């Protein structure tokens, strides 16, 4: 199963993420976020790990808050994230690990994502698993 696909958007960026279960969906949405920004693979020796805990009123809000938290970590630590492990997920809380590396000129994005929006935000169960649509402001 592919992790995500880009959806055309006139001014900003949008993607559809896929997952066999909700944990995988949340992990793949995070992959999409950093892939759109142009993150490059790194040597494992450079890897750093950040713990993330977020809460929200429902799964869609939780997805926004998870992605928003990753953007905040990126900006405050000057890192990019390439691997994710959801440790615990309920409709109102998520605990996860994000593995990344310091940002270099290699993956300095052309435009950094300003924010993760609620516009057209969906999380749906399909015959193949789960899908989420996210629009981000750039």
């Amino acid at each position, binding site marked *: 199963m592919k992790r995500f696909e880009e959806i055309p958007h006139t001014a900003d960026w949008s993607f559809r993420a896929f997952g066999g279960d909700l944990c995988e969906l949340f992990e793949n949405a995070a992959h999409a976020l950093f892939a759109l920004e142009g993150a490059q693979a790194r040597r494992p020796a450079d890897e750093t790990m950040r713990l993330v805990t977020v809460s929200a009123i429902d799964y869609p809000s939780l997805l926004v808050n998870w992605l928003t938290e990753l953007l905040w970590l990126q900006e*405050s630590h000057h890192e990019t994230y390439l691997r994710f492990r959801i440790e615990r997920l309920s409709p109102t809380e998520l605990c996860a690990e994000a593995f990344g590396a310091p*940002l270099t000129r290699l993956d300095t994005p052309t435009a950094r994502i300003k924010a993760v929006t609620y*516009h057209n935000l969906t999380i749906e169960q399909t015959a193949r698993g789960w899908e989420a649509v996210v629009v981000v402001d750039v």
Partner: protein
Amino acid sequence: MIAKQNFERISDYVWQVQQNFRGDMRAPARLYASEELLEDALQDESVTQLVNTATLPGIIKYAISMPDIHQGYGFPIGGVVATQAPDGVISPGGVGYDINCGVRLMASHLHAEQVAPKINDLATALYKNCPSGVGSEGSLPLNAKQLDDVLEQGSEWAARNGYARREDLQRTEEYGRMPGADAGAVSKRAKERGRDQLGTLGAGNHFIEVDHVVEVYDIALAERLGLFPEQIVVQIHCGSRGLGHQVCTDYVNDFQRAVREYKIELPDRELVCAPLNSPEGQAYFKAMAASANFAFSNRQILAHHIRRSFEEVLASIVKDFDLFQIYDIAHNMAKVEEHAVDDKRVKVCVHRKGATRAFGPGSAVLPDDLRAIGQPVLIPGSMGTASYVLIGTAKAMTETFGSTCHGAGRVMSRAKAKRQVRGDKLREELGARGIVVRAGSMPGLAEEAPQAYKDVSQVVQVVHRAGIGCRVARLEPLAVIKG
């Protein structure tokens, strides 16, 4: 999907979707456009987003979109919605993430031919002195107290600290200081993001441009503003950087609960809102005003660096290298204003998301020297094309809550632009046309290629002919600085 036949043509440049088009609309939805620009708008979700804004509780008259309308999130870019104050709603998504993104125009006393020999050096100095690009940090890191002062005082803070002249403040919307700002309503995280970003341009569609005045449409108005043919002028386009983005993120998130509490049903969660006079609405307004002050101050610090760059490069060849301010305007803001509705003066909360305030002659909020003619309106075009100076009109006051368009409006996604255009090729093409480019990222430059945007001249022609903005002058670029 909304089709052309769902619009009623009100006049040559005004199209309306009636309130009964959808059961959840609380007002009609109006689009200012030529037939061609209407058809452009129907190519993506822009018009659906416009109709969605007509569902906001307390909306007055109609939801409005300008001819530069394009698909955004929640509101379309180019959207204007006025709600009754104080019990109508305020929507953080109706302002957007880049709170008080806006444009400043400064003018010199120089002719283009005087600057031509030094235009390369000037572009280099501007690129060096004005921090730009993703994650750029300013030369002015602030401590906690200084940041709170910037948030509450805006350009007043800049003036007290030697970065602004009193005349600059006179020629800035809200005189560079939004009333009602409260640093206490801005989160710790937003402040952390803003602390080292004052005086930075950022990336994306933000820019500094050295232009020359290529056409004057109204000589008398141009003279009143201080503009003349072939004059060298400078535009700055940027906003509140990470601080504003975080404030919007915080409040869009908080308002997800508020809409449940106030039992507000909406077609899009990005439109979340709360009554302006509710605790949530007031907290957002105070934080938004503080972010707006950060943005006014940000453009002011950049203006200071630009003046320094002009001195650095031009002092050896000309006597007068000074830059004076024509105006500074916001195009992402919600403001409480007084407007005439059904022959009564009423207070309304006007959301302008990718739209510009365009107050006409006689407006009491304008400084003495502008009151007789109206407020200058600055419309930047896409990179390498034209930009316009307009003046607000009486018709804008009666039809659009004193609002007009804000730019060209995108028609092509960033991904498609990067597939179709190479940044280095584009820089060469612009160079061949005599436009010097300094940019930190070639893919970033490609995303902003002129073909990714509508023709700004068509957009401006619509607002001019519709009477919601009066053309004064046309500018074309000589040097472009991008992150």
